[in-house]
């Protein structure tokens, strides 16, 4: 599964520009699903039909990552940028940006680096150009952070673990699933980082009875972290609450019961900042029972998001277990 993860996290795909990620997932899912389509907002919807008598379940993992957009190019060829989603400002200085066509640029700031920028307006990118005319990028061009996938012991590090690791878990669950009574719609969603907008329309279109987002969550296991009980390596997290939504109590129970049945480690999660696709899915139409399977992740929204590989494998097992049996709570 590591090859799949590497391929996904290194792909280019800021919100609204998820095409390269979608192409990878579509190729992997081809032949393993009953139906694959892309909707008007770019969501990739992969249907695995059940044997009948089950529920219509939507799984949502977002393809998009946070990124940057060029807003202005000055006389000397330096480009100014705006953010796509919640970029961690402090991590930009000295990083590199990568554009859809592979162009690489250096990120820096007016304060000469040492303390990082105070605002995004103080950041610029250097493409090596000396004037607007020879700039390889133009206003409106989109970049992701350039950072390769690495293995650190049992832990995996990269940009865009949020939420390609969720895409990898959902995709692997699709491949591993055997017989199931449920019709499962695996949605690889767009524009989560700018307001969970892909999942919003996918849920309206699919009208699922139950939905589970697969996304990353923060941890409380790094130096001076705020009180939060989630740790790397202690298993997938079952969301109870985040800043955007309360998980449906039934969905939470279903996830916990499945983990216990399969003797998988799990953690319960209360997150005070951030949310997931489940936030917009829950209030679609006349209401959908929605929850979230979270993969504990350190340094979220930085270029070095870290997950534990065993947590990833256990997340796949948990998801497969949930989808393969009749839904009950």
């Amino acid at each position, binding site marked *: 599964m590591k090859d799949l993860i590497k391929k996904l996290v290194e792909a280019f795909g800021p919100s609204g520009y998820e095409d390269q990620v979608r192409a990878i997932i579509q190729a992997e899912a081809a032949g393993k699903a009953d139906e694959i389509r892309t909707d008007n907002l770019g969501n990739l919807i992969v249907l695995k039909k059940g044997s009948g008598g089950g529920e219509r379940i939507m799984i949502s993992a977002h393809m998009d990552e946070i990124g940057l957009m060029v807003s202005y190019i000055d006389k000397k060829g330096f480009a100014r940028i705006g953010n796509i989603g919640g970029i961690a400002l402090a991590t930009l200085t000295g990083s590199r940006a990568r554009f859809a066509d592979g162009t690489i640029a250096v990120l820096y700031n007016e304060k000469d680096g040492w303390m990082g920028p105070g605002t995004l307006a103080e950041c610029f990118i250097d493409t090596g150009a000396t004037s607007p005319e020879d700039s390889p990028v133009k206003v409106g061009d989109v970049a992701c952070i350039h950072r390769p996938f690495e293995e650190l012991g049992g832990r995996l590090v990269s940009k865009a673990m949020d939420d390609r690791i969720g895409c990898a878990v959902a995709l692997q669950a699709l491949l591993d699933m055997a017989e199931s009574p449920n019709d499962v719609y695996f949605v690889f969603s767009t524009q989560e980082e700018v307001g969970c907008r892909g999942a919003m329309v996918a849920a309206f279109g699919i009208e699922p009875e139950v939905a589970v987002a697969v996304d990353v969550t923060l941890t409380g296991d790094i130096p001076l972290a705020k009180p*939060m*009980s989630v740790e790397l390596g202690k298993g997938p997290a079952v969301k*109870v*609450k985040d800043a955007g939504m309360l998980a449906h109590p039934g969905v939470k129970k279903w996830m916990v019961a499945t983990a216990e049945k399969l003797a998988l480690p799990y953690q319960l999660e*209360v997150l*005070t900042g951030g949310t997931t696709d489940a936030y917009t899915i829950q209030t679609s*139409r*006349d209401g959908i*029972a929605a929850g979230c399977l979270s993969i504990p992740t350190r340094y979220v929204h930085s270029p070095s998001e870290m997950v534990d590989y065993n947590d990833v494998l256990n997340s796949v097992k948990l998801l497969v277990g949930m989808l393969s049996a009749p839904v009950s709570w």
Partner: protein
Amino acid sequence: MDTVALLRKLSQASGISGYEGEVRDIVRQAIEPFADEFRTDTLGNLIATRRGTEPVSTGHSIMLAAHMDEIGLIVKDIKDGFPRVTDVGGIDYRTLLGQEVIVHGQRDLPGVIGSRPPHVLSAADYEKPVPWDMLFIDTGLPQETVTQLVHIGDLVTLRREFLELSEGYVSGKTFDDRAGVASLAVCLELLASMKHSWDVYAVSTIQEETGLKGATVAAFGLNPDIGIAVDVGFGAQPGVSENESIKMNAGPALAIGPNVHPRMQARLSATADKFEIPLQKEVIPGGSGTDGWAIQVARSGIPTAVLSIPLRYMHTSVETMHIKDIERTGRLMALFISGLDDAFANELGLEGGKGAA
């Protein structure tokens, strides 16, 4: 209906956003005789339907909404046997120190929110409210037992006895918006002895405090012709200026602003005038922050009004109000509904009734 008794029961029940079951049961029991059908939707809204009766149902419908959920606490970590919490909905954390709570663990556990003695605080700390990360709950139980009985994500409600003050004033937790729910019950009871030709969906909504979730999905599901949200408004009190507040014991306040359809506003005002029900005005130039804000933009848009029952000390456990304001709100809605006719439907440009959802 004994409004005080109903409010007492509603107030003392636990029903944090997303977990409103106990309140739902109480509401259902209270309004059972006055509704034709009951339904609980996927997210937990309780929908009580009274079909229009006189002369015949027109197929037009009104949705009333008041939220059952309350703000509260949720366990996010447990350190050394002391649960640490964060809020569900916008609790005023400055009011938490020294409160009694109920921890809804494997069983309900009494607890208190402890604090450091003032004697050991630095002068700077003494001046500041205690931040979330420093708040903890003491159940009196040893660490091992706490770990067994309390899990991450368990809910914690404030424990507060309902208190009758003098001259019709009452005080307790969660009048926001159980007072609104009580006003729906008053309204339905009155309607049971009135004629009304429109269908009434009285919805006790869930998760208002965490983003108007219940009203959003209920309005979509029911697709009513018009809607009224009942919530609480800032009652006059020391420290809140007159232009930020409404008067106590002076009837509900009818919101004026973009959330309220002008013809709904006019019809409600006229109804209050006609039946001599005291009605105040409340200027809300932007988002009302109530279920009405969600109802208005459901589907292709729903003419909506917002009524506020005057309430002091909002989002604390000593919310205070006058019981008559609840009854006046219920009565105004009942008389408004009883007066709904084809002329009003035409005024709003409604086509034939949308029919039952």
